[in-house]
C-alpha cells in the first residue's frame, strides 16, 4: 500500500506537484495517468526518495522509502531504461544491485530468465536495444521479490510483443497480491492494464476512481455532423446548450447530446446536413477532454 499525503513539489516559482493525496492499494494495478509534464515522474521520484518534496509525505507500507535499509526487497522500481552504466555487463549491473541489498546472487540469474535476458547476460548494457534495456530495468525492479512495484512509463519504446509482456507481467504481479503502480500518458494502455486510475494534470488530482467507472463517465462519445453551413449549425446547437467543436476534417462534433436530438434541432431550424452519426469517443480523446477541461481550455497539444 502506498499512501501519498498532501505531496507538493515546487521548482522556484513553478509548482510541479500541487498537494496530491491518494492511496494505492495492493492486489490491483493502479494506473497513474496524465499528459506529459503533468508531474507523474516527479511524484514517483518523490515516492522513491530521489527528489525532496516541498511538502507532504509518501508512506510505502507505513514507512518512507528512505527509512528502509534494504529497500529493493520491499519496493521495486522501473524509472528510466538509461539508469544502467552502458559499459557494464547486464549480469554485473544486477549483481551490484543485489549486493547492495544483500540479495542472494542466485536471484540475479532468476530475474534474468524471467525477463528473457539470460542469453545476453554477459553483454554490455550499451549494446542493448531500448526494449532490452527496458527488460533489464524490469529485472532490477523484480530483483528483491518486492511486494510493492512502481513502473514509470514502462511500455515506452517497446514493440507490441513487449507491450503485451509488460501488461501481463503487471497483471500477474497484482494477482499475487502485490501493489502495482504504473504511470502512463496513454489512456488506451491504462484501460487495458489498470483496475484503478489516479489521473493528474498540472500537479493536481483530477480523478481517483476505478478504470471502468472512469471510462463510463468520460467517454460518452459525440455526434458527428457533416454540413455545408457549419456556422449556422454551430449557433443553433450552442443556443440549445450543446458543446460543439470543429474537427480537422471539416465536420462538427457535438458532445453530451443524442444524434436524435441533433436531428430534431436541424429540422426545426431547416438546416441542410449530409451526415449525422454517433461516434463513441476513443478513450484517448475522453482523457484529453478531461485534461482540457481541467486546464480551462479544449484539449491541448504537446503529446508525444
Amino acid at each position, binding site marked *: 500500500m502506498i499512501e501519498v499525503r498532501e505531496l507538493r513539489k515546487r521548482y522556484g516559482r513553478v509548482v510541479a506537484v500541487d498537494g496530491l493525496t491518494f492511496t494505492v492499494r495492493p492486489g490491483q494495478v493502479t494506473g497513474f495517468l496524465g499528459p506529459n509534464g503533468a508531474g507523474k515522474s516527479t511524484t514517483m521520484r518523490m515516492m*522513491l526518495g530521489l527528489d525532496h518534496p516541498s511538502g507532504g509525505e509518501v508512506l510505502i507500507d507505513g514507512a518512507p522509502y528512505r527509512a528502509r*535499509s534494504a529497500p529493493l526487497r520491499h519496493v521495486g522500481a522501473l524509472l528510466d531504461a538509461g539508469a544502467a*552504466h552502458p559499459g557494464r555487463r547486464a549480469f554485473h549491473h544486477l549483481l551490484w544491485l543485489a549486493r547492495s541489498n544483500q540479495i542472494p546472487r542466485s536471484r540475479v540469474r532468476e530475474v534474468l530468465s524471467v525477463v528473457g535476458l539470460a542469453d545476453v547476460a554477459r553483454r554490455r548494457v550499451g549494446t542493448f536495444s531500448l526494449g532490452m534495456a527496458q527488460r533489464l530495468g524490469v529485472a532490477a525492479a523484480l530483483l528483491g521479490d518486492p511486494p510493492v512495484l512502481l513502473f514509470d512509463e514502462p511500455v515506452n519504446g517497446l514493440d507490441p510483443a*513487449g507491450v503485451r509482456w509488460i501488461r501481463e507481467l503487471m497483471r500477474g504481479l497484482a494477482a499475487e497480491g502485490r501493489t502495482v503502480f504504473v504511470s502512463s500518458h496513454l489512456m488506451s494502455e491504462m484501460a487495458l492494464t489498470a483496475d484503478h486510475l489516479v489521473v493528474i494534470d498540472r500537479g493536481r488530482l483530477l480523478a481517483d476512481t476505478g478504470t471502468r467507472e472512469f471510462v463510463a463517465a468520460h467517454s460518452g462519445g459525440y455526434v458527428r455532423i457533416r454540413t455545408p453551413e457549419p456556422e449556422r449549425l454551430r449557433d443553433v446547437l450552442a443556443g440549445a446548450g450543446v458543446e460543439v467543436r470543429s474537427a480537422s476534417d471539416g465536420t462538427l462534433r457535438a458532445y453530451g447530446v443524442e444524434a436524435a436530438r441533433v436531428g430534431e434541432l436541424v429540422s426545426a431550424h431547416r438546416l441542410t446536413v449530409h451526415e449525422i452519426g454517433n461516434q463513441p469517443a476513443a478513450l484517448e480523446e475522453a482523457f484529453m477532454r478531461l485534461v482540457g477541461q481541467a486546464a480551462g481550455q479544449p484539449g491541448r497539444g504537446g503529446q508525444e
Partner: protein
Amino acid sequence: MNGATSGERAPSGPVARSGPARTVAATGPVSRTVGNPLRAVVAAELTKLGTLRSTYWTLAAAFVVTVGLTALIALSFRTSLPHQPPQRQADFDPLFATFYGVTLGQLAMVVFGVLAVGVEYRSGSIRASLLAVPHRGRWYVGKVLAAAVPSAVAAVATVLTTLVVAQVVLGPYAVPTGADGLSAALVGAGLHLTLLTLFALGVAALLRSAVWSLSALLPVFLLGSQGLGNVPGLRTVTQYLPDQTTWVIMHLAGPQDDPRWAREYGPWTGVGILVLWTVAALVGGYLVLRRRDA
C-alpha cells in the same frame, strides 16, 4: 545478433503455463538475515568499480606513467651525473628522482577518482544507486571507502615498484639503505596518491559532473607538476594547492634548507594539509549530494 533477437522476444513458456506468480517470485529466500548495511554498500560499490573497464585503465595508467617517468628521469641522472662537478653530485637527492614520476602518474589517479562518482551522473546510474541505498550518507561513505581500496592498492604497488626501478636504474647513485627520509617519503607518496584520488572524488560529487571536474583539476595539477609551486612569486599561494603539499615529504620540492625552495610547512604538515583538502572536498560533495534531487 542472435542474442539481440532472443532478448527482444517475450519470454513465452513459463509465464503462460505456470502463471506469472511462480516465475516472478523468488524460488529461494530473498530476505536473508540483514547484515551490516554499510558493508553491503561497500561490497556493491566495489562490484561496480570492478566491473568497469575504466577502473583498470586509469589505475594501470597511473602505475605505468609513474614508474616509466621515474625510470626516464633516473636514467638521465645516471648518464649525466658523472659529468657534473662534484658539488652537484654531492647535492643529488636520489629520492627526487625516485618520486618524480608521481607528478605525472597522479593525473591518472585523479581521473579514476573523478570517474568513480562522475560516471554515476553521466550515465544516470546515480538514480539506481540511490534507489538501492536511499540513505545518502551511507551510500556516499560506501562509495568513498570502496574507491579508497583500489586506489590505495594501486598507490602502494606504484610507489614500491617505482622505488625498485629507480634503485636499479640509478645504480651507483641509488638511495642508500636506511637513508634519511626514505620511509617517510614512501608513506608520503602512497598517501599522496590515495588522498588525491579521494579529493578528486569529492570534487566530482561537488560538481556532479566528470567533465567539469576534470576540466578544473587536470590543468591545475598538470601545471603543478611542471613546477608551478616553485615559481617564486606564485609560490606563497601555489604551495598550498592539494597536489603540492606532499612534495616536501616526497623530496620533490627541492632542498628545504635552501631559501629558494623552502616551503612554509614541514613534510608531515604538508601531508596534513592534503588531508584537510580531501576532507573539505568530501564534505562539500556530501552536502551537495544530500541536498540535491537526484
